[in-house]
């Protein structure tokens, strides 16, 4: 689904983060991206999301080069990116409102999906309900807990029916039960709806729970990708088991070797 060919990227005036970097992601895959802070994890997601311009090389999604945000890619950021002046429902509807604002032009919104206002409302309400936010839909983000804000941001993304979900530290600063619940939700979406998921995290346990493949990035520039196959993904109730611990230990060792 995603083909990264010879990607090179640097922030202006700095050393490159990626240099002739290649990676292929299959449809329906679940990837974790892990590495020390400042290694370019978030940049990697922004590049996939079409929010940063590559210096050379290409990122192809479904064969099309990514030059601007792609309508069917959903991005969820750590601090949620909600509009403080809009209610939960208005926030969750934002993506669809923007689609309607442009019309189905194929550039900002998918060309094949025209969505009436009623349909959009229904879809937003469906996801708010499903994420347990229906009762709070008229509240403003300032009144919500972090977990509730993150649910709103996820509802906003899911209402757009993405086929690729990019998540940047989505569970940091959440309490453990909320984190596990959302981990569960994302894993189900990945398996049942066949949504490709790429999740960036600095947390080894999260990386092992969420990614069937784990991409380890290093500080300095990344040329060869270090990929770990992970059989423990999606095992929520076995966090205490040996296999899970061994996987975490191996990942820790890999990261140590890269540093």
């Amino acid at each position, binding site marked *: 689904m995603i083909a990264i060919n010879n990607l090179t990227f640097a922030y202006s005036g700095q050393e490159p983060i990626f240099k002739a970097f290649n990676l292929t992601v299959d449809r329906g895959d679940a990837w974790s991206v892990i590495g020390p802070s400042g290694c370019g994890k978030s940049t990697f997601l*922004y590049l996939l*999301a*079409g*929010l940063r311009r590559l210096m050379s090389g290409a990122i192809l999604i479904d064969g099309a080069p990514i030059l601007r*945000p792609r*309508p069917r*890619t*959903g*991005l*969820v*950021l*750590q*601090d*949620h*990116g*909600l*509009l*403080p*002046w*809009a209610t939960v429902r208005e926030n969750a509807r*934002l*993506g669809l*409102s*923007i*689609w309607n*604002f*442009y019309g189905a032009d194929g550039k*900002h*919104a998918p060309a094949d999906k025209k969505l009436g206002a009623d349909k959009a409302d229904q879809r937003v309400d469906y996801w708010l309900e499903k994420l347990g936010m229906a009762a709070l839909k008229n*509240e*403003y983000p*300032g*009144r919500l807990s972090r977990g509730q804000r993150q649910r709103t*941001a996820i509802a*906003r993304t899911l209402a*757009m029916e993405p086929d690729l979900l990019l998540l940047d530290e989505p569970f940091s600063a959440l309490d453990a039960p909320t984190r596990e619940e959302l981990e569960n939700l994302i894993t189900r979406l990945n398996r049942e709806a066949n949504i490709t998921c790429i999740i960036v995290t600095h947390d080894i346990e999260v990386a092992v729970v969420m990614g069937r493949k784990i991409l380890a990035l290093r500080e300095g520039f990344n040329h060869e990708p270090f990929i770990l196959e992970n059989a423990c993904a999606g095992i929520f109730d076995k966090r205490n088991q040996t296999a899970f611990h061994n996987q975490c230990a191996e990942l820790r060792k890999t990261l140590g070797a890269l540093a």
Partner: protein
Amino acid sequence: MKRRLNLSAAVIGLLMFMFCWQVLTWLIRQPIMPSPLLVLPLFFKSIFGELGLHFLASTGRVLAAIAVSVITAVPVGLGLGQSPRLDRIFAPLIAIVYPIPKIVFLPVIYILMGITDVSKVFLIALIIFFQILVVVRDEAANLQAELILSVRSLGAGRRALFRYVYFPASLPAVLTALRVSVGTAIAVLFIAEQSLTTYGLGYYIVVETYQVLRYPEMYTGIMAMSVLGLVLYFVIYSLEHRFCRYQDQNGA
């Protein structure tokens, strides 16, 4: 701003004001201080006559100035706020010009633009322009980069960003700046209307009544100008509450 004004408070305030006025009338006992009991009936009679025309002329000028300044200052402010490079270039200039009382340019503007409605509106717009420019610039600059990124990832281009992010983000600040500067704007209007015009409250108060010693009529003009200031203030105030409810909630 946190203390909300309600109707009963407004009525009580008005009655206290009238009472103080009446006490002054009793104390001063000169034609320059007529009783509100004389001025009020006169006001309500003449506001539907000639005074009303003066009132409309002044209102029109203030509204035109507000419109011109908002339409020009908001885009410039957004541009500066979004581009740190442009902002660095222009910030020193704005910092110098911002605190200058623009009324001192009155003669210059009159000579360059003529003593017309255009020059009067321009002078008032100039005052409001800088107030709005500065707050819109700061609001746009303070928006979190992550917020912009995540809205862009939803497909928003420049136009949608303006509609869904920059405009609603700067609206509260624009309204606050307007509410604060409306008093200055009307004060400047009062001065600007004293020269070469036929309608306008400034002209009515100074030329048509004060200079010919029609003191009670002069007070009706003063009342009309006060009403203009009050109404504008509270219209903007209620717009702030209507559009910025989330701030009350967040502050709670």
